């Protein structure tokens, strides 16, 4: 499990101790400060492999019938519903499950799981489906040819194809006909040190079922929570090692 990813531990521990000694702000060189051990990345810096973005979905807090996350995603990315639901883009969807034996009901959002070993990346003939250094799985729409192999390969059915000409796209979320798309973990926000829109909306709705953060930052809230509660990855038997973890399944 990624929660136990300790590849960067020694360095982080070292930094952690250094900051404990020097107070909260460690100055290394003019213009370079380590303000926070969490993974904030300045706009102008490239995504770094020292970070692995991930999410914890607490299904015990997720409410059936609530789709605040889904709506926030649609607003953020300008996903407009048509009168043909079968072709509508679905970056995140709510799933309600009932255990037939116990009668237990749970509700959970499913989106791109941002796998470490992503099948969509493996099958892409152009390299357009790729995993960023910091673990976010994306479609490079400049090189996507719309073949949809990735959609077939994804065990989570997380990707959509754009069948029609679009208008009214948001500036920060270009989208267009003939390409595949999926949840980006809101890279345009994450790169500016903000949370994904769904997480923000879930918190605003008072549920706090979604926690976003850096899986490889052992001091961070996400890794801490993952250490405390029992969690599962969807279809962990496939060995894709998703960045999204679920509690309460």
């Amino acid at each position, binding site marked *: 499990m990624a929660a136990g990813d300790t590849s960067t531990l020694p360095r982080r521990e070292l930094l952690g101790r250094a900051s404990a000694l020097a107070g909260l702000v460690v100055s290394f060189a003019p213009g370079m400060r380590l303000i926070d051990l969490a993974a904030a990345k300045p706009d102008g810096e490239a995504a770094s492999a020292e970070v692995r973005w991930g999410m914890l979905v607490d299904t015990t807090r997720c409410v059936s019938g609530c789709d605040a996350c889904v709506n926030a995603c649609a607003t953020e990315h300008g996903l407009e519903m048509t009168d043909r639901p079968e072709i509508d883009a679905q970056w995140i969807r709510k799933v309600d499950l009932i255990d037939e034996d116990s009668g237990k009901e749970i509700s959970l959002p499913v989106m791109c799981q941002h796998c470490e070993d992503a099948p969509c990346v493996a099958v892409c003939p152009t390299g357009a489906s790729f995993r960023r250094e910091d673990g976010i799985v994306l479609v490079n729409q400049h090189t996507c040819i719309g073949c949809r192999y990735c959609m077939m390969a994804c065990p989570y059915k997380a990707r959509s194809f754009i069948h029609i000409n679009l208008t009214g796209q948001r500036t920060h979320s270009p989208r267009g006909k003939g390409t595949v798309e999926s949840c980006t973990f809101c890279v345009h926000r994450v*790169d*500016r040190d903000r949370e994904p829109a769904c997480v923000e909306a879930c918190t605003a709705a008072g549920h706090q079922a979604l926690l976003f953060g850096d899986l490889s930052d052992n001091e961070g809230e996400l890794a801490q929570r993952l250490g405390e509660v029992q969690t599962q990855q969807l279809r962990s038997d496939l060995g894709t090692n998703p960045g999204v973890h679920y509690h309460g399944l």
Partner: protein
Amino acid sequence: MGSVWRLLPLIMLTGVLPWSVIADEPIFPRARGERCVEPVGVMRRAHFEFLNHQGQQTVERGIRIGRHSLAGCVGCHAARDQNADWVPVSAPGQFCDSCHSYAAVRIDCFSCHRAVPEADRAMGN
């Protein structure tokens, strides 16, 4: 045509027709802002290389600063119509289209990228 005759001595001397006489240069709306992100001559020749580079940097590596953002071009180069509504930079006769139809260049950028500024909605909301 009259101007060609007036320029005849010059043409006979140099053997070339001035550009503006051979064909009408593309005309496009004035941009906002003091100046472009690069000198005009550089922009005319290399804007697509800048754009490709910046697109790659942003998508593949998450680098979100840099002068050559496509959203930036739209922000300064989109114009408003008589009703003060934004006109897409890619619409006929608008900034990106003017030269391109003149030079028979076709771009698909604005099938995905927003071609008018989105000032009324704060980023990310």
